[in-house]
């Protein structure tokens, strides 16, 4: 997809008949969207940094504290717990999403019947809202639920600090696998077929072909999917919130960074501290975004 930036001077004067009118119409056409982007994206970003430098209560700023909110975060055991949980979740969910996404992509990339149907089936959970998916998970993982019955267990998945976060991990790996499959499919398409023809002539079976050819040649695909998956994982909120009634429980085992931001802002009315946590998360996500754009932006955009 080409981001075809016109090769013209930014403020070049074009004195053509009707140019003035064209410019006016241009501004009129972009006015409302630009107002929305500036007011609800650009300004909030700056405003977030501004708020983060204040002790900010429910009624407004209580006093400027400089970077103190950031040092408070550093020493806050709850924030540290949230970071630990979020990292733990990311470390597990990313490889799971990737492996599952790749498996599905390879399967539906075969020349077999009902391919479109299966592709649709695998993508199905990615359609649903996080709330609906979480409701289904809560039902299937309840003590008399399907999962316990199938495996002969009596686990209280979302009530046990040992299993609550892993359950969310599994849930989201399952939900997002379809999306990862789409990205991997696009990467699989990019592999030229003659490589396989040569390998087949050399007598390499499908298993060998996959590990010796497909997997290494998918390197850009792995990288892309990994970054997308990592960024998504660090934003985990909905499922943790719904499963724990917003408490991040049991025993803070599902307390994620975004849940920390939400609770600190809404429940504790410490907007300065919450904004600081938001800025920290943004910086980390931004670094990954930059890496992604550096590797793919140029390639796809130029």
């Amino acid at each position, binding site marked *: *997809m*080409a981001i*075809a*930036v*016109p090769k013209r001077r930014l403020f070049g004067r074009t004195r053509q008949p009707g140019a003035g009118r*064209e410019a006016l*119409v*241009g501004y009129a*056409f972009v006015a*409302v*969207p*630009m107002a*929305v*982007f500036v007011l*609800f*994206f*650009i300004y*909030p970003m700056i405003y*977030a940094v501004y*708020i983060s430098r204040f002790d900010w209560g429910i009624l407004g700023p209580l006093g400027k504290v400089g970077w103190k909110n950031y040092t408070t975060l550093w020493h806050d055991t709850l924030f540290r717990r949230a970071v630990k949980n979020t990292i733990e979740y990311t470390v597990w969910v990313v490889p799971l999403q990737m492996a599952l996404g790749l498996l599905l992509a390879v399967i539906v990339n*075969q020349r*077999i019947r009902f391919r*479109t149907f*299966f592709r*649709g089936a695998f993508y*199905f959970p990615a*359609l*649903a*809202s*996080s*709330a*609906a998916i979480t*409701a*289904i998970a809560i*039902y*299937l993982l*309840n003590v008399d639920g399907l999962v316990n019955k199938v495996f002969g267990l009596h686990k209280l998945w979302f009530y046990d600090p040992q299993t609550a976060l892993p359950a969310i991990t599994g849930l989201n790996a399952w939900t997002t696998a379809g999306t990862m499959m789409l990205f991997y*499919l*696009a990467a699989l398409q990019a592999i*030229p*077929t003659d490589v*396989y*023809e040569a390998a087949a002539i050399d007598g390499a079976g*499908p298993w060998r*072909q996959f590990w010796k050819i497909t997997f290494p040649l998918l390197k850009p695909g792995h990288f*892309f999917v990994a970054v997308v998956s990592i960024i*998504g994982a660090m934003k985990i*909120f*909905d499922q943790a*919130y*719904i499963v724990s009634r917003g408490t991040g429980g049991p025993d803070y085992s599902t307390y994620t*960074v*975004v849940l920390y931001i*939400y609770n600190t*802002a809404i429940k504790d009315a410490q*907007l300065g501290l*919450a*904004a600081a946590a*938001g800025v920290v998360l*943004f910086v980390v996500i931004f670094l990954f975004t930059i890496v992604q754009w550096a590797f793919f932006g140029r390639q796809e955009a130029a």
Partner: protein
Amino acid sequence: MSEPAAPPFAAVEELAAGEPVAVGSSAPAGIPGRARSERIQRAVAYGAMFGISLLFFVPFLWSLSTSFKPLPETANFSLLPHHWTLAGYRAALGDYNFTRYMGNSAVLAAAVTLTSVFLAAVGGYAFARLRFPGRTILFFLVLGTLMIPDQLRLVPIYRMLTVFPLTHWNLVDTYQGYWAIRMVSATALFLMRQYFLTIPRDLEEAAKLDAAGFFKTFWRVMLPLAGPALAAIAILEFQGTWNDFFWANLLLQSPQHWTLPVGLAQFVFTYRTLWNSLMAATMIALAPVVLVYLVFQRYFVAGVASAGVKG
């Protein structure tokens, strides 16, 4: 949920359309042993596909079945209800107010989709075709907003909507506030611009000779040609708003303003074990998106893949 996930738009669209795609195992025919290994491979692939698709379908089918069970049956280990009943749906829609939540979701999704499609088309057209000073800078600004995660915007947006700059409106817990922050998305505008760039200029030149104004050219010539892009964006925005939990949960606080996802979450908090009603409500939340998906699968996958991935 809009990451700048540089979208493989063309490839994905082709996939969604079910076009024949390059296949990893396509070896030239006539090699000894080829047919047998191919057959084995195919059997394995079919087996794996059916097994895995069960994994993807069973949770939904199980929940669907539960939504038609009477409450005492929900603990039973049976795929089909012994006594089919709509009690779960009646309770969800009547006693637990999901009719209201459904209406709220529909109104908000419709409002957001309409404005987003229109504003993205108008803005995308301007960025693709009209020349005005500062266009490049403004366009980079649009792309830049893709990098700003919702989680950073949570606190400042919440604060802004509590006491809106200059006007001091309180827009928290209003439809207007929710609609305002989602009125148009950078992803939608970007996709529209990209699509307009692919339309040959000759068509507009003809309109210009007719001395049609810029808006008329846009409305009469460009917009009718942009059908597929408009459809993809409409579906993307509809699904995004209908499914949104993050902003709806933050901003729409009083029960009469809840959308389906918020209502579902609150139902889980309060009546967790009324499984048949909970699953009925879940099915109500799923139905429109599934329907749209089945009808417009091709646009759907294209749009979603270009918007990135949800958290």
